[in-house]
């Protein structure tokens, strides 16, 4: 390197940057870890650590006051013998099976309507999205009042068209349906995700199909649905994860009742963790939910080659 030959001296200016490049790479890696540090710590402290800890706790009996006591798989055997757990599982399953497809179908239909080129569409989009922004306890209490058997707006309107409405939240056969209707009201978030997907579909495809004489329904089936399937997939996965964790509505509107008709898994978990302080048993419920969500997500992923359409040359995630 110290050779004074002209050939070498030409190389020197190249060698120097490459040396600097290496040291910069090292310091870049250092800085990269500094940048990622909050996120890494966040995962370790608030996700990975607790996930492992809750697995451990699910094999113990723990009431916060005395130390956790190892009891093996007793929590899980109790879980599967406990009628209330089966009831919670049944409620969550019915809710998911009904509300997830219903919400997806409804959101998709609404998105197609909202994608029509028309004046004033921005206004409609805002109106339908509004319930997603204004959610939570206040709205849950509002629904409680809407579903009031005698004086609530829903039964009043039903009686105006000659229908005697059910007692909704007081009737164990109708309470879950009331919560499903409530969930339909906030369909705007899913709708706008579909809408964004619809707007990504090239207009020319529809024009070409029209020239070929394809009707609206054929266009929808052979262009819209396949090209939207990645978005449907995304919404389906998030919908399942969300449906299995419903808490606020069930807790505020019905408190799990009447007669446990709306005892969702998350409410059952809450009762054991924070009312009875059965932290070990609650962890077993949590891990059961975790495995259930993982299995369902895995099933959706596995089924995706059958119905999710990826453009060739572009890898979807």
């Amino acid at each position: 390197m110290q050779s004074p030959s002209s050939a070498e001296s030409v190389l020197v200016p190249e060698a120097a940057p490459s040396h600097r490049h290496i040291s910069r790479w090292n310091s870049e890696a250092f800085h990269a870890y500094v940048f990622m540090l909050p996120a890494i710590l966040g995962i370790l402290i608030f996700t990975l650590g607790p996930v492992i800890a809750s697995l451990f706790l699910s094999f113990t009996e723990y009431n916060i006051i005395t130390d956790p006591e190892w009891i093996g798989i007793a929590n899980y055997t109790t879980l599967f013998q406990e009628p209330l757990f089966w009831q919670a599982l049944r409620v969550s399953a019915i809710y998911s099976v009904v509300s997830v497809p219903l919400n997806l179908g409804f959101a998709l239909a609404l998105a197609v309507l909202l994608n029509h080129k028309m004046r004033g569409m921005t206004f409609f989009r805002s109106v339908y999205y509004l319930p997603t922004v204004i959610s939570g306890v206040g709205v849950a209490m509002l629904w409680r009042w809407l579903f009031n058997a005698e004086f609530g707006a829903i039964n009043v309107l039903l009686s105006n068209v000659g229908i005697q409405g059910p007692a909704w939240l007081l009737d164990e056969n109708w309470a879950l349906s009331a919560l499903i209707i409530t969930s339909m009201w906030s369909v705007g978030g899913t709708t706008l995700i579909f809408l964004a997907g619809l707007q990504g579909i090239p207009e020319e495809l529809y024009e070409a199909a029209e020239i070929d004489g394809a009707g609206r329904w054929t266009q929808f089936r052979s262009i819209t649905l396949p090209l939207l399937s990645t978005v449907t997939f995304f919404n389906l996965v998030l919908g399942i994860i969300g449906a299995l964790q419903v808490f606020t509505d069930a807790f505020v509107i019905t408190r799990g009742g009447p007669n446990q008709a709306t005892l969702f898994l998350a409410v059952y978990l809450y009762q054991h963790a924070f009312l009875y302080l059965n932290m070990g048993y609650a962890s077993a419920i949590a891990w059961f939910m975790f495995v259930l969500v993982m299995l369902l997500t895995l099933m959706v992923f596995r089924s995706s080659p059958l119905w999710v359409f990826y453009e060739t040359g572009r890898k979807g995630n």
Partner: protein
Amino acid sequence: MATRNTALPFWRTRRGQDRLATAAIFTTLCIGGTVVLLPFFWMLSTALKRADQVYLSPPVWVPIPPEVINFWTALTRVPFHIYALNTTIIVVLVMIGTLLSCSFAAYGFARMNAPGRDFIFMLVLGTLMLPGAVTLVPTYLMFNSVGWVNTFLPLIVPSFFGSAFNIFLLRQFYLTLPVELEDAAKIDGANPYRIWWSIMLPLSQPVLATVGVFTFVGTYNDFFTPLIYLADESKYTIAVALSYFQGSPRIGPQMHLLMAAVTVSILPPLILFLAAQRYFVRGIVMSGIKG
């Protein structure tokens, strides 16, 4: 309805079909929109009724004169200003924490090379799939053991450690920015933190606004976290306080006061939504890209 230049009747022509479709869609959206807005109307209507008008059949849809005083009554029977102050403290700090930590991490994931970076990023995204219930009990026990239960800390501190979806959103944005911007700063001797703070943050204002509005709405509406961590009434957020109103003898049985309180409680997200709609829509468009 002219059928000029064609043998087809107007409704069979292309323009006619378009008009018909538009009319049908408009009508459907109007009916659906009424259904969506009806609960809000019912809330406001109840909030403005006299006590003796609430439980009537058939109901009073538009109370005249409106009892505007209900809002005052509902808000002064409980220390509402304290709940509002608690909520403000929590929401503001969570927003600061989220914006800082997420943009900081996102910049690292988008621009800095290091072994294992993509693996760590996949881990971050993986947390999106995790049901919150799994981490709930140990997280509660952890905060309990350091004596943070019944303080705001369990609600605020986690936000300073990033959250997957926001990191993802910001990273996608940073990836679209031209590298030349940073190269110029590097030549001037700026370190990466300086570049993040003085170049990337100002450039990413629109995305930060999107993350900000979603964080605001999410934190403001959050019920579960404050419910399990805050025990004293003096520490309640609006959401938790509201949930106790229905059982409280001061407000609970009086539906008009309860609905007045609910109306006030939805105002902050409502105003934010009306003022910053485009940021909400942008966030959804960006999340749609992910699919």
